[in-house]
């Protein structure tokens, strides 16, 4: 594992809200091509870790490095520009926009023409608009959403909205994709679909994927490595089978008495 330098590296990261220590002393790294899960009981700080990586919160201590450069405390949009994209626990699509426009918006990052291009509408602008639409449609095609490209995104089914969120995140051309509870609210069949989808995305785009998930089947089924958080600290890290056997993890999930029994 250590032959290649890791893509994302968190060392000693901690954050406090007032007196509450949400995450502390968190060391973690992920390399290109890896699919890693981040699990833990409710309130363990998983989403907080996501929010630190994506710049929603600035960590109170520790360092966050992405492909060699420090991204500590950068604004979320800057971090996305570095190549980190995310989805949200509760779907956050741009509700008034069509499916394809949701994806186009994420391609904004890579535009050559800006406001004045949009006003002048010269050839360069028109060519770029064309390219952007093609790229968005291609991405939608890969995920089977191209048919609905011009439909309002609100009209999509729940599962398709989740998929659109992933497509939108991919449109920023990330190297690391963070998925925040993508299986939430899905039925078993949808979950199986989702697992295939995540693995496919990771291979197709050559990404590092970090997955926060409650559903053990999903996490154990697709992750190569799993980190476990409890009360803001990492209590275990390893392969799915190692984690399943880890006494501390079992205790964290099921309570102490089970261990004693």
């Amino acid at each position, binding site marked *: 594992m250590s032959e290649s330098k890791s893509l994302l590296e968190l060392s000693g990261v901690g954050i406090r*809200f007032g007196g509450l220590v949400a995450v502390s002393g968190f060391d973690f790294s992920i390399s290109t091509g890896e699919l890693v899960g981040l699990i833990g009981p409710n309130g363990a700080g998983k989403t907080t870790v996501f*929010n630190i990586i994506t710049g929603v919160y600035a960590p109170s201590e520790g360092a966050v490095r992405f492909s060699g450069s420090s991204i500590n405390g950068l604004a979320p949009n800057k971090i996305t520009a570095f190549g980190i994209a995310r989805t*949200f626990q509760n779907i956050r699509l741009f509700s008034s926009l069509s499916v394809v426009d949701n994806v186009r918006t994420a391609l904004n990052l890579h535009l050559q023409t800006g406001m004045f291009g949009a006003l002048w509408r010269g050839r360069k602008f028109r060519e770029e608009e064309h390219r952007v639409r093609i790229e968005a449609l291609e991405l939608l095609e890969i995920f089977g959403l191209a048919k609905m490209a011009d439909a309002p995104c609100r009209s999509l089914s729940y599962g398709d909205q989740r998929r659109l969120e992933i497509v939108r995140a991919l449109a920023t051309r990330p190297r690391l994709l963070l998925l925040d509870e993508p299986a939430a609210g899905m039925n078993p069949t949808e979950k199986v679909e989702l697992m295939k989808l995540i693995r496919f995305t990771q291979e197709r785009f050559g990404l590092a994927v970090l997955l926060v998930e409650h559903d053990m089947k999903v996490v154990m089924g697709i992750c190569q490595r799993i980190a476990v958080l409890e009360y803001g600290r990492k209590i275990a890290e390893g392969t799915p089978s190692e984690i399943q056997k880890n006494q501390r993890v079992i205790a964290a999930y099921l309570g102490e008495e089970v261990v004693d029994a």
Partner: protein
Amino acid sequence: MNELLQQILNGLSLGAIYALIALGYTMVYGVLRFINFAHGDVFMVGAFSGLYLFRWLKPFFDGGRWLLAALVLLGAMLISATLGVLVEWLAYRPLREKPRLTVLITAIGVSLLLEYSAQLLFGAAPRGFPSLVEGGAIGGIGGLHASNVQVLVFLVSGALLFALRFIVMRTRIGLAMRALSLNPTAAALMGVNISVVISFTFGLGSALAAAGAIFYASLYQAIDPFMGVLPGLKAFVAAVLGGIGSLPGAALGGVILGVVETLVVGYSKELGIPPGYRDAVAFVILILILLFKPSGLLGKNHREKV
């Protein structure tokens, strides 16, 4: 030195009035999370109710001037409270689940409606407001002067603040108000009748605004249909300054704003600020506080969950 103390005293009486209005903003924000733009106009209605109550009741009270003043104050508070409850019931209640912006626009509509209806009813020209208590200054300590009205303002607003504190901290409905402001869903699940609590909050806030209006009118001795706009906005600034949602904060913010405003006008030459900038003081404070401490002096921080 004496002059400074005198200015501060004057500022305190103005600040007490801002505090009374600000409490209404902050209470409504506490339970509904929105800025009741029409609050300043409920204040105005309080002043006009006071004027008409005074005229009607005056013939019946020859000697008992204090009793008359008390009745005018209570009557105006009752009328404004009714109006506040009515406004919430008619305009805001149908919008309870709608985006906050929709409610804000409605509040602007209610504000305009009250202002222009008042203009239609009472005319646009300023009307004189009678002195409810005999005028004249009480020669205070060390050459400080406080008029009868100012003394009344201090005493009654102090009493009202205590009464409010009692209601919020020691009664069932006060407990329900606090529960609602902490977590509306949980409060409803625990059997709090949200609609009743919201109505009560509007009534309470409006009554306090009416008391402020009677004092304001007594100090400046003139009222008009648009008199509520500026004091309303300034009281809102006071609420934000103290930390919106916090009752002690609103009181503190009101007092600070009243004192600062009076001092800026009183020392305009020394400070190099023309007295005409008086009405801009509050907004400058607002912008500064929102930039540097948006949660206000005594408020709590809120973060959006991601």
